[in-house]
């Protein structure tokens, strides 16, 4: 018995150590966000400083005017939110629509089209990157949000996931009953199917939102004006600028970009974790 307890003690120590490794970088970030540049340069401590307000003012001062243009961090938040919310709504709605189209109807070429979705799921995203850039250049869509938002109408993995969901939860008799009652096909989808698919849409929405919020490479090549930058690109842009000269301000800016995700995770963590395991095991 004692031997087992000793063994368990070692395991708990290991788990706690691993947790500390996961959390320490965030702690360093938050603590340094409250300390002045000179304090940070002098060395690390676990005790927070009292320069949070100064760091914030300095960060805002250097961010607000770049080449005469407003580039504040709150604008970055707003830009990221506009993009991520639009992506979430479009991919949720159109993926449900597409998945239902595949589930409920038999049409010519259905198998080929679905196969195409499966193949596209496996193609690495960078393959079309340069063509994507040139396409948007010729359509004069560079430096707009359209290339970041509209392509989310076609999200292969989400369609695949939602079709699996329909296959496992939906009963065809339900659609038949609605047809007998005289409902049109489009209103069947909007009034009956869409509400039933809400759990699957919600699951995919969390990932769509976080994915769009965190996206870096595509906005980096598409957006040129600092006032249009989403948060991740804005952060990279700060690295070479005046804000980075004050380490406290830079840690604060990084903290501000990270905190919304930490809060969202604290609220949805159980939901997110169960979705990851469900998604992977089914495949």
């Amino acid at each position, binding site marked *: 018995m004692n031997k087992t307890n000793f063994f368990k003690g070692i395991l708990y120590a290991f788990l706690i150590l691993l947790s500390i490794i996961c959390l320490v970088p965030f702690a360093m970030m938050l603590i340094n966000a409250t300390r002045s540049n000179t304090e940070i340069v002098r060395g690390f401590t676990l005790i927070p400083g009292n320069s949070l307000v100064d760091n914030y003012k300095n960060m805002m001062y250097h961010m607000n005017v770049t080449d005469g243009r407003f580039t504040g961090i709150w604008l970055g938040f707003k830009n990221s939110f506009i993009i991520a919310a639009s992506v979430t709504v479009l991919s949720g709605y159109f993926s449900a629509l597409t998945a239902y*189209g595949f589930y409920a109807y038999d049409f010519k070429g259905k198998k080929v089209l679905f196969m195409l979705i499966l193949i596209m799921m496996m193609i690495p995203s960078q393959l079309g990157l340069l063509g994507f850039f040139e396409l948007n250049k010729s359509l004069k869509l560079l430096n707009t949000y359209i290339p970041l938002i509209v392509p989310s109408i076609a999200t292969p993995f989400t369609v695949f996931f939602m079709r699996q969901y329909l296959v496992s939860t939906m009963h065809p008799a339900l659609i038949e009953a609605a047809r007998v009652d005289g409902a049109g096909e489009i209103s069947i989808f909007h009034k009956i199917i869409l509400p039933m698919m809400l759990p699957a849409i919600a699951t995919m929405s969390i990932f769509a939102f976080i994915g769009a919020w965190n996206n870096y490479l595509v906005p980096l090549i598409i957006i040129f004006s600092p006032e249009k930058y989403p948060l991740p690109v804005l952060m990279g842009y700060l690295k070479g600028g005046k804000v980075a000269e004050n380490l406290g301000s830079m840690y604060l800016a990084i903290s501000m970009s990270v905190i919304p995700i930490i809060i969202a995770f604290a609220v949805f963590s159980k939901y997110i974790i169960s979705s990851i395991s469900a998604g992977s095991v089914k495949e």
Partner: protein
Amino acid sequence: MRSKNRYGYLFVSPFFIVFAIFGIYPILLSLYMSFTDFKGVGSPYDANFVGLQQYARLLGDKYFLQAFVNTWKIWGVNIVLQLSIALILSVIFSDIRLKIKGMNFFRAVFYLPNLITVSSVALLFLFILDWQHGALNSMLLKYGLISKPINWLGQPATAQLSVSLIQTWLWFGHTFIIVFAGIQGISKDYFEAAMIDGANRSQTFFKVTLPLLRPIMLYVVITSLIGGLQLFEIPFLMSQNGLGGPEGSLVTMVLYLFNQAFKYRNFGYAAAVAYGLFIIILGFSMIVFKGMFKEEV
């Protein structure tokens, strides 16, 4: 009834229209660009057609070869560590006799890094690992673990190791969740049978758990390979001007592609790099797939 099936086209058409324009066309345009000497000015269709010249250049390009080796080194260290930690954690939490508590808490903490914006993670570690004023060196010096600061990002080996460890830090929680779900999916009968036959913990692990986990491990290795060979943000943001760190040790294949296109304006060549990378990913995914299922065929 039959006429209703027309609606199928209506319902899937928005997806496929957008898909054709923003998904398939760019891939084909990239392919066309890879046969030209397009420099990013004007339309790719006006550029000179050079046949397979860009691909010939790719095969003899020692910088691409270096990027290829760098990417593999960074990914290799990361996947071994990540899978080992995930397996150890899964075994600890699934052991019925141990009854370890607090799994939901630990799982959430381990997974947290994975959700954070990668560019913020890169910047955070850039500042934490800074040679002179970084929090890590400050902390190690303070507790006397090192006597002089280590230039983590200034030497090729430590720079690559740093990126590998950051990748591990980002992904082991995610892999743990998947592997653990895989273990949960194994029928309890197998473990009971092993226990009745008198198998100890390590025998159970190597003879029962590991073989039955093979499909899940395959999923983890392939998805990680596809993502890992496309590594970009962390090396890009953690090196000066995105050029790839000390002696080019952080130039990954996608970073090389990015710089060829957007720094040197060699769009035609960069498109060939993209297809080269695609073929590499495809080839190695198939090797991993075959390797892991060899014994069953």
